[in-house]
């Protein structure tokens, strides 16, 4: 199945956005404004859906004209593109999205044609599947661990590097004892929180959107 690589699922959704000429601010712009203010760190709705590796939302205004002799053509609707990479199966993911982040889902997809809301989860899943486009080829560099396992591994890596720097030169008995403590601390640490915080971003990311 080309939507899946190992245990990672690559979901691609194109939801047509409502067109209404009577509005002062069109749905596409409302949606962009909302997305521009949505937290991108541990406060992101996707951090709540902890099986998400990377996800994006894009308002696709039109197709691209590449120049003559190609024909120029245009879409009649704008589309919301939802591209996400997550662990395991589609239905569980969509159910979590609807159950755990209903306000976010409503705020985004209320701008889209045919969105049924999230109160009826089966209807929501059916809607998303109608908007799904099959991935033709999906590449996942790491596809045999979960997001949580990857985050834990990154924490272990960091803790081990600090441990080695701190304890070099000590006697083997001391290192052995302290290493046991390190393992205990790692084993009993709370689950890492996905998404990081603002200190993980570089200043360049806050420049005006181009």
């Amino acid at each position: 199945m080309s939507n899946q690589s190992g245990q990672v699922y690559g979901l691609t959704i194109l939801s047509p956005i409502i067109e209404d000429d009577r509005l002062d601010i069109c749905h596409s712009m409302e949606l962009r404004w909302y997305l521009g203010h949505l937290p991108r760190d541990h406060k992101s709705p996707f951090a709540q859906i902890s099986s998400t590796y990377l996800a994006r939302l894009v308002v696709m205004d039109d197709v691209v004209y590449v120049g003559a002799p190609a024909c120029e053509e245009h879409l009649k609707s704008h589309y919301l593109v939802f591209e996400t990479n997550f662990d395991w199966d589609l239905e569980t993911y969509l159910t979590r999205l609807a159950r755990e982040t209903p306000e976010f889902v409503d705020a985004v997809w209320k701008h889209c044609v045919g969105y049924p809301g999230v109160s009826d989860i089966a209807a929501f899943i059916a809607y998303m599947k109608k908007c799904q486009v099959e991935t033709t080829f999906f590449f996942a560099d790491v596809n045999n661990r979960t997001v949580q396992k990857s985050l834990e591994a990154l924490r272990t890596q960091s803790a081990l590097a600090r441990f080695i720097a701190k304890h070099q030169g000590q006697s083997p008995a001391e290192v052995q004892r302290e290493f046991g403590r390190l393992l205990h601390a790692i084993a009993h640490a709370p689950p890492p929180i996905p998404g990081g915080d603002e200190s993980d971003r570089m200043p360049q990311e806050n420049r005006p959107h181009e």
Partner: protein
Amino acid sequence: MIREARQHTITKMTNINGKAYAMNAITPMKPWKTPILKLAFFVLGAVKPLQKNLKDLSFIHFARWVVIRRNQFPRLSDRQPREELRYDYLLFFSNFNGTWNQYIDAFSAVLSQGLDLIWRWSEKYPGSRPVTGFKRYISLVQFDTDYYYNAYPRAATNDVKAALRVQDAVDQFARASQSLSPAEFEKAWLEFLVRVQSDLGSTGVAPVGT
């Protein structure tokens, strides 16, 4: 007035989140070429050694190509205008580390044949070499991301792979070293350090680039 005010409040550079860059591109294809491209993707998916260069580049978390036939854009209501397109479209979504220029340069230098096999069916594709025309084409067909989430913003895909190797090594060493004497532990510890030393680079904020 409201429209302008809202435009000015969208300030995030959302193609980037931490060390990951979200690229979106769309290119038109004559419909008779679509089956050929699908066959190429089928072969690429089935013959894993063909993905070796992509894997070896090791700076792409996830990437996908999605072919949409001209009559496959989701239509969810009779009131939604039906798309009337002459071309099929190839969508490309990538989550990579590094800057846009580094990515395109590396693609052109290392994956030239693979890229040409995929995009040669798209209108006006100039080939991936020389890189100047290729970059111009990608700039033309790329569209920006409105919202981008990353579960581990401080980590590149190489960091994740290194961390997973460290985690495996730590788990093994923890089991193997439980009942060692300090002298035995010293020897095993040194062997363990040799095994993990090249995977202990620290993660952090991405460097500023273009």
